[in-house]
């Protein structure tokens, strides 16, 4: 939890307010084991929250709240949601640990990170 908080704050340093960090807090809180689903909003041309930390087997759901289509595309090319039209979602299950930087292929200034960390200690 402690690490996760600083992780979000760093990500939100990109011109977004502290209120958004509060919104992101529940996304990374976890009280028990098992697979979880974390939602990332594509809103006003930003990923919210921009950084999420999950466990292997967890799911991230991207939801596009803008009129313009967006994607969530891994920098290393390992995964890609493809184009998400307005008001649509796509889910991806992450099984392998790793830190995945991603961006919107249509609006490359939109960036985010999915950190897949093995459980234990957290």
């Amino acid at each position: 939890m402690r690490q996760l908080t600083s992780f979000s704050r760093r990500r939100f340093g990109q011109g977004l307010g502290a209120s958004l960090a509060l919104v992101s807090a529940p996304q990374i809180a976890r009280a028990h084991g098992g697979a979880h689903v974390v939602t990332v909003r594509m809103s006003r041309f930003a990923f919210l929250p921009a950084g999420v930390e999950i466990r292997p087997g967890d799911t991230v759901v991207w939801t596009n709240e803008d009129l313009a289509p967006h994607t969530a595309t891994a920098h290393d090319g390992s995964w890609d949601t493809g184009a998400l039209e307005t008001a649509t979602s796509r889910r991806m299950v992450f099984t392998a640990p790793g830190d995945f930087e991603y961006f919107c292929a249509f609006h490359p200034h939109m960036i985010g990170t999915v950190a897949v960390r093995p459980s234990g200690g957290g």
Partner: protein
Amino acid sequence: MKITTLTLAVAVVATGLAAEAGQPMNDLEIAHTAYTAGGLDIRYAHLALAISENDAVREFAQTMIRDHTAVNDAAGALIAELNVTPKDNDLSRALVEGAAAKRAEFMQLSGAAFDCAYATNELGYHQLVNKTVAEAFIPAVKVAPLKTLLEDALVTFRAHEAHAERMVDGLECAS
């Protein structure tokens, strides 16, 4: 000649959208102009895809087509839902004429000259449209869903303006 559109549009904005006859633009005229502005940017983008060989310019153009199509689709759906017909007006006509002149100018260009002309125009065009939408259209529009749509569209257009700025910087065009 080249600045006719800008001059007229800015003048219209500056005078609170008072047209020649002194009538402020109504919702149907605002809707028409916003839709027209999006359509014109799509046309510029198709020209860019036909002429430019620069990856950054081509990607920008593809994004303009994708995003403005999405915004105009949403506008079309709202217009259908409200069962109204957008109304042509002086500002829409000025935008159309200005863009036709620009396209004719751009068609004479190629390579870096085209890229810089297109990129610079995209920046100026989005700046102008955004100023008009933010300062004139949104405050004036009366129908709530149309106001919401314009606000959502403005978020998109502002992202385009920032994107255009980065494109212009990246091209290092001589000013």
